[in-house]
């Protein structure tokens, strides 16, 4: 114990610094947001539009990311195939890509003059659907990464046990792998959702910032920032509160009933 104490003190101090550093801006937003502005921002139609758009688009993006990402991550976690390392790198690339670059990349690929522009150009750029695409692009790697790690961490004997009990690979995936990895899947979904809610650069480049159509909460905050700082603070406070609530809800929902 006496040996461990100095080390524990160092760790404790490090944690205190980290928490203080990360919590300070959040506290400051709530401290600086005038209570009256906070209330009136909830009555501001444009602000509400932005919040609604943020949640709708991020939720849609998340559904798509989970639907496609879960089986894809399963394959990456359970199979060895040539080029797998390359595939993993491609999947993780958006993590390190500046959002502005992501936005330009999306324009170059899906914009009117882009690679697939003939098919997608008119439906995505400056459209709500474009926001969903941008959010899915930047948030998907977070989910894929954690889902892959979660699936890879499952005791292989559980999957083999399922097979010997007569369940094929599909049933094993649905009934054993997903429940066993639900903690990681939930954490991945929460991270991806958080990333999507905070998305700014790629959305701005690819979908623009039109009220009610593509202006998500972060874009609305940026717009108010130069003209009406109290309103920007108030909207920030609301976004923080709702995001924290979502994060918490996802964690609670996926916390193992496993024990």
């Amino acid at each position, binding site marked *: 114990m006496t040996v461990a104490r100095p080390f524990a003190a160092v760790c404790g101090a490090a944690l205190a610094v980290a928490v203080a550093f990360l919590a300070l801006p959040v506290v400051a937003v709530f401290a600086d947001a005038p209570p009256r502005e906070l209330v009136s921002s909830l009555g501001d139609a444009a602000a509400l539009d932005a919040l609604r758009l943020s949640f709708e688009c991020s939720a849609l993006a998340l559904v798509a990311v989970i639907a496609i990402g879960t089986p894809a991550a399963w394959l990456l976690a359970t199979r060895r195939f040539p080029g797998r390392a390359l595939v993993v790198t491609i999947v993780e690339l958006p993590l390190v890509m500046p959002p502005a670059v992501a936005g330009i990349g999306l324009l170059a690929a899906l914009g009117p003059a882009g690679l697939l522009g003939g098919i997608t150009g008119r439906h995505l750029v400056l459209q709500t659907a474009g926001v969903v695409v941008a959010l899915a692009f930047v948030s998907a790697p977070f989910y894929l990464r954690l889902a892959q790690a979660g699936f890879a961490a499952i005791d292989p004997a559980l999957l083999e046990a399922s097979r010997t009990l*007569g*369940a094929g690979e599909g049933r094993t995936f649905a009934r054993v792998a997903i429940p066993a990895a639900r903690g990681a899947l939930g954490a991945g979904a929460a991270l991806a959702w958080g990333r999507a809610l905070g998305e700014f650069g790629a959305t701005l480049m690819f979908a623009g910032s039109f009220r009610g159509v593509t202006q998500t909460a972060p874009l609305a905050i940026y717009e108010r920032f130069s003209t009406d700082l109290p309103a920007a603070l108030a909207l920030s406070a609301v976004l923080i509160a709702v995001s924290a609530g979502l994060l918490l809800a996802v964690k609670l929902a996926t916390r193992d009933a496993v024990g």
Partner: protein
Amino acid sequence: MLSAELRHPLRAFTLDLALEVAAGECLALAGPSGAGKTSTLRAIAGLLPAEQAQVRCGDVVWDGPGVHVAAERRRCGFLFQEYALFGHMSAWQNVAYGLRTRRAARRAEALALLENFGVESLADARPGDLSGGERQRVALARALARRPAALLLDEPLSALDAATRAEAIGALRTLLAQAGAPAILVTHDFAEAAVLADRVAVVEHGRVLQEGSAATLAAEPRSAFVAAFTGATTLRGTAAPRADGLTAVELDGGGRILAADEAHGRVIAVVHPWDVTLETPGTQAGSAQNRLAATVVTLTPAGNRLRVGLQAPQPLAAEVTAAGAQRLGLAAGSEVLATWKATATRLVLEDYARAHHG
């Protein structure tokens, strides 16, 4: 009847063995860790696609030229080393996972299977809340759910502490009796193999070194490795507690021994050859409580010792030095007195279900 011929390269050696197990028979694959035992089981279950495999269960070919039946289509009950229970399901749901009956009938059927192993009261518990012995029994019930045509048991006792083992052995014997299917059991403990299996194959580096009854292997090891590995012989009998705290065991076929372990009813007594001393009949010396008249059947050199196969009247083995054998004038047919201490006798219940329900 389950038969398997396997050839498959592993990291350090090539698995190369042929096995055959009759319905209702239990074959133990016994050997040190890393001998290829688990790989053998996994290949038979279809979980490890072997390079060359001929596996046949009854009339069904599971592996053969151009044939590889998927693991989920082999009716093969597999007991995993750490039991591999699904943590997000309750005990009964784990058992019901393998059932293919109507939804409404599942719980009742799962409960009936759990009841076989005396754990129906734990039906709604999660595996995480169960003890090692309870987990084992839930896993046994689950392995039976598909009415397996073959049973494969991977180190079924290794995850248990010594105190739980005796009961767990009983539960395993219940399973083997109920399934009536050919069974292969993997263990690194020869005593475990001797207690649970009808026949033992000693495996080393992917090959079967010697195969036979546990008593034969212990009495007539064909190699020093088998001699060293077969550290136990077993005697069957009926146990009854005595007033002095010891347990008396009336051996099948005659003879009576004492053990320090507590037990009542049908038991298997486990004795190690190096605990057994041989004396010429008539001598009355030493503190050893167990004294059985025996006939020498075989004499097998094992390193610097002799493994002496005895008939007493059940087969038993003793280990003596060459000098000791000379002094006693041991030869096949010699009459001797096999003696060992009550404290060197481990008792294992033969049938758990009977002991607990009847």
